[in-house]
């Protein structure tokens, strides 16, 4: 049965329905084929993507929906969910490579290496600012790590869109600045 809200999944509807991710998604999605931040939280918790780490907080789930919310609907369709899944899997792999003792946390200074590996080149000053918000006792948990990566990715996208020439600086008008940064 075709759900118009799900968008064009490669291979068509039949392929989508065989996709194991589709099972998790459709279990929470409504008739419109979209999921809210709460539904995403439920979905990700049931999928076990966090493994032995604690499930994602509501705030992190809200950030994840917002990161991929291209149509400003404050909700997520299946193609975005698939994209999110891939991104999350990558971030989890990175996190685990630093969490050798599987404590569920990584050291603050390792976070900078992790970000460099992910392509975010941040100064020590920027790292300090990030650590203030996302660390406890110098350590960062998986949920905070993902929240942080999501914000970084969203902010970087916003910046790049205003630096088309890739000069390294971007122009922001005030009303735009407010809306763009508050949308994250």
């Amino acid at each position, binding site marked *: 049965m075709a759900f118009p809200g799900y968008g064009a999944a490669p291979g068509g509807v039949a392929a989508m329905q065989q996709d194991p991710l589709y099972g998790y998604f459709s279990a929470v999605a409504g008739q419109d084929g979209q999921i809210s*931040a*709460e539904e995403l939280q439920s979905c990700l918790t049931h999928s076990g993507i966090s493994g032995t780490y604690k499930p994602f907080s509501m705030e992190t789930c*809200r950030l994840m929906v*917002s990161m991929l919310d291209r149509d*400003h609907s*404050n909700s997520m369709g299946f193609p975005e969910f698939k994209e999110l899944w891939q991104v999350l899997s990558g971030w989890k792999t990175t996190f685990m490579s630093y969490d050798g003792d599987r404590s569920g946390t990584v050291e603050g200074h390792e976070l900078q290496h992790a970000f460099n590996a992910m392509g975010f080149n*941040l*100064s020590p*000053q*920027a790292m300090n*600012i*990030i650590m*203030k*918000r996302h660390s406890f006792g110098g350590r960062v948990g998986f949920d905070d790590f993902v929240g942080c990566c999501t*914000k*970084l990715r969203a*902010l*970087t996208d916003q*910046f790049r869109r205003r*630096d088309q020439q890739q000069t*390294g*600086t*971007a*122009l*922001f*008008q*005030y*009303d735009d*600045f*407010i*809306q763009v*940064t*508050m*949308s*994250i």
Partner: protein
Amino acid sequence: MAYHSPYRGAPQNNATPDQSFLWNIFQRVDKDRSGVISDTELQQALSNAMFDRENKGGVNFSEFGGVWKYVTDWQNIFRNYDRDNSGFIDKNELKQALTGFGYRLSDQFYNTLIEKFDRQRKGQVAFDDFVQCCIVLQRLTDVFRRYDTDQDGWIQVSYEQYLSMVFNIV
């Protein structure tokens, strides 16, 4: 001017409560966190270090007078915009409030604001959500102003500057 000073002027509450009244309240709040001032509002004000002039991580009695006034100012504003007295501010009421403060925001953006600040997931903002929303908007405005040296409503920033400006506010 390209942008107003949104929320600089909270309506001034001219009646200063007397000392003994304040002291009673202070003791009450200090002990059992009664519903007179919610934990979130107080935490919000304190964590912004707005009242803790000596960086103690808390407020003494004389600073508390400032806290009290601040919260009642906010309550007055909230009541002013909660037109149907529901105890919540809906999208339209929020629009009126923020437009009244001088912000120029798109209709679609108000959906995003509610989604972001509505902690009780009711599709409307409660008092403490409303206060947090306004504080975040104010902090973003303040940081923007600091970079807008020629006050024309535009800033040009590097990637690093941009991250430092907003990362801990949003």
